[in-house]
C-alpha cells in the first residue's frame, strides 16, 4: 500500500533508505513529503533560510539511477538539510548573517561534496544563530527559529534550524556545526540525536569558522542508527583541511546491535548532577538506570580540574571568532546583530596571555579525561541543565527560583568535549512536565564514536523517546 506523505516524512532515514533501495518508495515521493512539511511549518518555525524546490529534479534523477540498478548507498535519494554555514557550490550560503548575505561559494564544502557523492538530495539550508556565535537561533536577519514541541520556545543553537527541521520531519537528517555545543544543544532541546565528533574526524573545509580550535561538523537525525549512517558519509581525512585527522575511520553502524553489557559508564556527580532542573536530573538518571539494566556499570570519577572549563570555553570561543571577524567588525559593525556584535567586540579585548592560559587549561583537562578513560568507556551527563526556554529569554531558572545568565548556563556541560576534543553524542532520554525534550550527553575517547553510537542504539532499542513527534 502506498504511503501518504505524512507517513513518509515520519520514517527514519534508515527505514526510508530501505524502501528506496527496494524501489518501494521513490526519492521523488520523499522530496515531495519533505517539501510539503516545510510548506506547513516554515512560516512558524523559520527553520530554513533557503529551500530547494529543484530537489524534485534531483530526486527524479536519483529515481532513474536506482531503477537502473545504480544504488549508491543508504543516503541515495534521501532529502538532507545543511546548516547554512556549510558551503554549497553555486548556492547562497549566508552563515545566518547579513555580512555574507549574498555569498555564493565556488565549491562545495567537503562534507557537502561527500553527501552529494553518496546520493543525498539537499532539501535546503537551515537557519542558525548568526555566524554560529550563539545558542538561541534568534536570528535578526533570517527570522527567529522556534521549537516544534512548543513554538513559543527556542530550539537552542547555533544549529537550531537543523534541530527544528529534523524534529519537525522536514528532512531525514541534517548537518550542524558544533563549537561549544551547537549540535548537541539543539539536539537535546528538540528531542533528536546529534553528534559532535572528535576534533579533526570530520572535515571543516568549506564551512564558515567560528573558533578554529573547537569547530566540528556533526550529523543530526531522529535516531542513533540514522546518525551513524549520516556520519559514515562525512567522517574521514580531508587533505584540504589542515586540522583533519589521519586516524582511520570505521563503519559506525557495525556495532549498533552489540549492546552495553560490560560497558563502564563514568559519572562525575559533583559537577554534572549538582545543579539541574529536576526533570533533567530525573530523565538522565533514569536513562543511566536503563543502561545499567542492560548490563552497563557505573563508576564515580573525580576530574580534579573540571571546574574552570566554562571560563576557558568563553575565552577561546570569544577570542578566535573575533580574529576571524576583525576586518568586518571594523568595516561594517552595524551589519551584525546586537548580541553577536557585542561578543565579537568583547573577544577583541581579552588579553593574549589569558587566551594562552585557557589553551594550557585545555591540555590539562584533556590529560585528566584521558587518564579517566583508562577506567571507564564513556561518560554520561545531561547536555544542559534545563529544557527549552521562552523565545527571547536571556536568563533561566534552574533551581530555587534564581535567575541565571543563559549563555553561561547553557554551555555548562557541553564545554568539556569542546575543550578536550573528545566526541560526544546526544540522545533523547525523556520529557519534562510540559512535554519538552531532555537529552543526555554520552562522551567518549577520541576517535571512539562507534562506542557512543553503540550505547545510544542500545538505549533506543529499550526506549521509545525517539519515536515521539511534536504535534506541529
Amino acid at each position, binding site marked *: 500500500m502506498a504511503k501518504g506523505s505524512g507517513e513518509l516524512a515520519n520514517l527514519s532515514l534508515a527505514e526510508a533508505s530501505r524502501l528506496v533501495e527496494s524501489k518501494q518508495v521513490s526519492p521523488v515521493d520523499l522530496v515531495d513529503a519533505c517539501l510539503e512539511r516545510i510548506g506547513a511549518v516554515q512560516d512558524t518555525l523559520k527553520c530554513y533560510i533557503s529551500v530547494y524546490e529543484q530537489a524534485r529534479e534531483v530526486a527524479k534523477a536519483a529515481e532513474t539511477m536506482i531503477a537502473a540498478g545504480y544504488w549508491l548507498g543508504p543516503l541515495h535519494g534521501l532529502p538532507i538539510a545543511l546548516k547554512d554555514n556549510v558551503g554549497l557550490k553555486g548556492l547562497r550560503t549566508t552563515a545566518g548573517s547579513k555580512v555574507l548575505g549574498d555569498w555564493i561559494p565556488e565549491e562545495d564544502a567537503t562534507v557537502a561534496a561527500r553527501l552529494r557523492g553518496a546520493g543525498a538530495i539537499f532539501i535546503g539550508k537551515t537557519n542558525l544563530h548568526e555566524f554560529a556565535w550563539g545558542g538561541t537561533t534568534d536570528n535578526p536577519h533570517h527570522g527567529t527559529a522556534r521549537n516544534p514541541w512548543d513554538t513559543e520556545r527556542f530550539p537552542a543553537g547555533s544549529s537550531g534550524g537543523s534541530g527544528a527541521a529534523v524534529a519537525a520531519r522536514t528532512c531525514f537528517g541534517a548537518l550542524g556545526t558544533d563549537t561549544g555545543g551547537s549540535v548537541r544543544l539543539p539536539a537535546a532541546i528538540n528531542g533528536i540525536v546529534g553528534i559532535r565528533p572528535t576534533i579533526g574526524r570530520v572535515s571543516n573545509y568549506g564551512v564558515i569558522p567560528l573558533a578554529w580550535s573547537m569547530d566540528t561538523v556533526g550529523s543530526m537525525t531522529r535516531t542513533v542508527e540514522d546518525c551513524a549512517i549520516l556520519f559514515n558519509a562525512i567522517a574521514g581525512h580531508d587533505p584540504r583541511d589542515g*586540522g583533519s585527522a589521519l586516524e582511520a575511520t570505521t563503519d559506525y553502524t557495525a556495532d549498533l546491535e552489540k549492546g552495553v553489557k560490560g560497558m563502564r559508564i563514568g559519572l562525575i556527580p559533583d559537577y554534572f548532577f549538582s545543579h539541574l532542573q529536576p526533570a533533567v536530573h530525573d530523565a538522565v538518571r533514569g536513562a543511566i538506570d536503563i543502561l545499567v539494566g542492560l548490563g552497563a556499570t557505573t563508576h564515580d570519577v573525580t576530574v580534579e580540574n573540571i571546574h574552570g572549563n566554562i*571560563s576557558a570555553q*568563553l*575565552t577561546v570561543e570569544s577570542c578566535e571568532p573575533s580574529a576571524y571577524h576583525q576586518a568586518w567588525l571594523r568595516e561594517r559593525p552595524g551589519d551584525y546583530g546586537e548580541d553577536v556584535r557585542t561578543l565579537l567586540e568583547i573577544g577583541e579585548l581579552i588579553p593574549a596571555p589569558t587566551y594562552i*592560559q*585557557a*589553551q594550557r587549561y585545555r591540555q*590539562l583537562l584533556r590529560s585528566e579525561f584521558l587518564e579517566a578513560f583508562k577506567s571507564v568507556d564513556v561518560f554520561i551527563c545531561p547536555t544542559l541543565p534545563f529544557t527549552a526556554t521562552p523565545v527571547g529569554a536571556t536568563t533561566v531558572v534552574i533551581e530555587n527560583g534564581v535567575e541565571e545568565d543563559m549563555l553561561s548556563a547553557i554551555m555548562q556541560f557541553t564545554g568539556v568535549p569542546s575543550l578536550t576534543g573528545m566526541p560526544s553524542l546526544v540522545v533523547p532520554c525523556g520529557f519534562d512536565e510540559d512535554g519538552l525534550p531532555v537529552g543526555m550527553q554520552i562522551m567518549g575517547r577520541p576517535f571512539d564514536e562507534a562506542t557512543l553510537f553503540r550505547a545510544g542504539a542500545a538505549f533506543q532499542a529499550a526506549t521509545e523517546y525517539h519515536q515521539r513527534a511534536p504535534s506541529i
Partner: protein
Amino acid sequence: MSESSDLSAEKIRALAEAAGLSLEQGREAAISPILTAWLADAHELNRKMSARKHWAIGPLTVFTHPRK
C-alpha cells in the same frame, strides 16, 4: 585593574583603542558587564594555570604537517 568593579567606559575605550577597534558611542554599556564577569573568572583560571604544578603544561597548539 581592580577585579571587583565593573570596567568603566573609559577603560573599555582604552582597551579597544589598544586593539585598534573603534567603538561607537554607547557600545561600552553592552560590553562592560559581560567582559567584567568573564575576565574575573579568567583571572582565576590564570592563577590556577600559573601554579608551579602546572609549569610543564604547554598550550593546546596544532601543527599541520603537509603531506609529502
